[in-house]
């Protein structure tokens, strides 16, 4: 046997950009994260060719899951065509030979920043959420080492206290996004800065969600059919954003999460935040044959 037979021909970059040992480590961390839902597994986050904080954690997971038959969708704030999303999507397909899509239903891997699609995900789909700050305890304990001990002790009293203080001071819970949520009755996680609207979509969902923070070097996961419960008091219900009655000015669809668009005259317009969901509705209204998937919310309400 010759040495040459044991090696592959030289390439400028490895398949999926990351080297095989990096991918193996990330796969192992993902498995651990799935085994202990909501627990933050440290990993040796690699440098990738986008800036830290721009989705390097999500990108590493996506690159690790990638195979040539993958169909990849990348979302930024609900939108496929925003600059960062299209840049990441282009990079993934460039180094992985995968297929790009904007259609939630067609994707096998969905990497997202700050949104979960409005159409329900299936068991064969993986949602990769980019996480800027994986530590739900950070507002009460910026010291990581101490926070890890608190997770070990399931010591979440101070988080409840913060929510209670918001109630007392403002009359309602003011937490906008990253709503702290108990996973499988054990670990409180931050569900990445998704709006309150999206948190209930994680509860008992059919799909696997992997949350990855590149800068902070932590991976955690919500396995399929796992309880995800936002921290709420028995007598104060969890409230999502008041977007139920807003209508998208482009697609005329009502009852989903909207972007507010400030207008010159001082007023505001609203458009669907999930951009491709909006595109589908517009196409449908123009009598194209479009398949729109089942949605988590119906008429602006989640049962």
């Amino acid at each position, binding site marked *: 046997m010759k040495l040459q037979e044991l090696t592959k021909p030289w390439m400028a970059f490895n398949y999926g950009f990351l080297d095989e040992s990096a991918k193996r480590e990330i796969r192992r961390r993902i498995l651990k994260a799935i085994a202990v839902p909501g627990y933050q597994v440290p990993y040796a986050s690699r440098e990738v*060719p986008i*800036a830290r904080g721009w989705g390097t954690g999500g990108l590493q997971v996506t690159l690790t899951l990638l195979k040539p038959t993958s169909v990849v969708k990348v979302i930024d704030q609900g939108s496929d065509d925003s600059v960062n999303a299209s840049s990441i999507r282009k990079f993934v397909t460039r180094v992985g030979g995968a297929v790009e899509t904007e259609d939630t239903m067609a994707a096998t891997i969905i990497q997202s920043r700050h949104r979960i699609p409005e159409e329900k995900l299936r068991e064969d789909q993986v949602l990769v959420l980019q996480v800027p*700050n994986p*530590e739900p305890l*950070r*507002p009460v304990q*910026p010291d990581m080492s101490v926070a890890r001990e608190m997770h070990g002790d399931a010591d979440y009293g101070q988080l409840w206290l913060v929510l209670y203080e918001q109630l007392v001071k403002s009359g309602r819970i003011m937490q906008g996004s990253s709503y702290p949520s108990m996973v499988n009755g054990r670990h409180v996680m931050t569900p990445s800065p998704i709006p309150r609207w999206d948190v209930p979509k994680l509860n008992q969902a059919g799909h696997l969600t992997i949350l990855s923070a590149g800068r902070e070097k932590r991976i955690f996961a919500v396995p399929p059919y796992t309880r995800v419960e936002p921290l709420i008091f028995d007598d104060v219900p969890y409230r999502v954003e008041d977007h139920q009655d807003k209508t998208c000015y482009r697609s005329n669809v009502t009852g989903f999460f909207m*972007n507010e*668009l400030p207008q010159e005259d001082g007023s505001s317009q609203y458009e669907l935040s999930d951009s491709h969901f909006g595109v589908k509705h517009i196409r449908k209204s123009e009598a194209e044959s479009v398949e729109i998937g089942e949605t988590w919310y119906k008429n602006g309400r989640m049962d």
Partner: protein
Amino acid sequence: MAYVATRGGEYAIEQAERLFRADLGPITRERVDAVRTGLPYLIDRLMGEASLYEPDLAALALAQAGGDLYEAILLLRAYRTTQPRIAVADPIDQPDLLTVRRISAAFKDIPGGQILGPTLDYSHRLLQVDVLQGNDYVPEPVIPAAKPAPATQPSLTSWQKAQGLIPNHPGETVAPEEIPDLTREPLLFPAARAHKLQSLARADTGGTLALGYASMRGYSAVHPTVNELRLAYAPVRLRHPSGTIFSAGRVRVSQTEVISKVKELQLGFSATFGWNEVKVIAAATLDLASNQPNPHPAANEEFVLYHTEPIESSGFCIHFKLPHYVTFQSTPDALRRVKTDKDTAAVKPAVTEKLAPQQEEVAL
């Protein structure tokens, strides 16, 4: 810098400086031009921290310092201080800025639009190693937009104020000659807002980033969102003694407003000479964080402004290379004294105990 401990003093010192300059080689007009045109963002950073807007002088300072940024800032600030303050330019409102990049992260779109301008934000960071093989990297030409973006843009904050989202604090009107100037007056605490913003404008980019990052990462109560970030050319309008207003040119400026929900929506602001987005985002975050009651020490106004001053901090840091043997001498002296005192107190009984059995053995 006199290294007094070295015998043979002046000759060696002169040769040491020559050694430094010999490494750099001759500083030519061509080199200065190459630095100015090839490293515009470094020049911008330098002009901001030096609070002197002159790209040629900044390039010269960088070339002369061999790229040592703190040394270059010192060169420029030392030069700047020799220049008279002859006039105060008219204030610039946001809608007056000739804006080439203007983005908001708070809204998907804003009146006036998102203008990406020049940026590497969405590029893939792959080294063009081919260049080292002799294959020049020639950038793709820019294709102009069908409809050019307007040169000036409205203020997003004005829109938010009109909406009642942000409280409208009435602005102060200060006569130009009354504007406090940090380069001529000491920084006192609590700092005047003008001093605070001037101090942040010329703060060290790295130091501002370190403390700003600490604030963003959780060591403060603020969670910044970029409300509006601009890279622009600011017209410098001066008033002639006869009363006419004329333009003295334009300066590159960066400016950021960050917004955070504390009890209500609050703004942090920063602006600096040159295009340096990291600096102004970090500084605006620190401005906002330090305005909160009982900020974390890392966002405390006094802590931030003192410790991000590039000339004072770098100068103090390198001053430790100066001989300190006179003051240090008293330390070994005291330590020796303590040791002697201890030895005399502790050793005596030990010696007598040890000696006693030995004497017995001898006696046997």
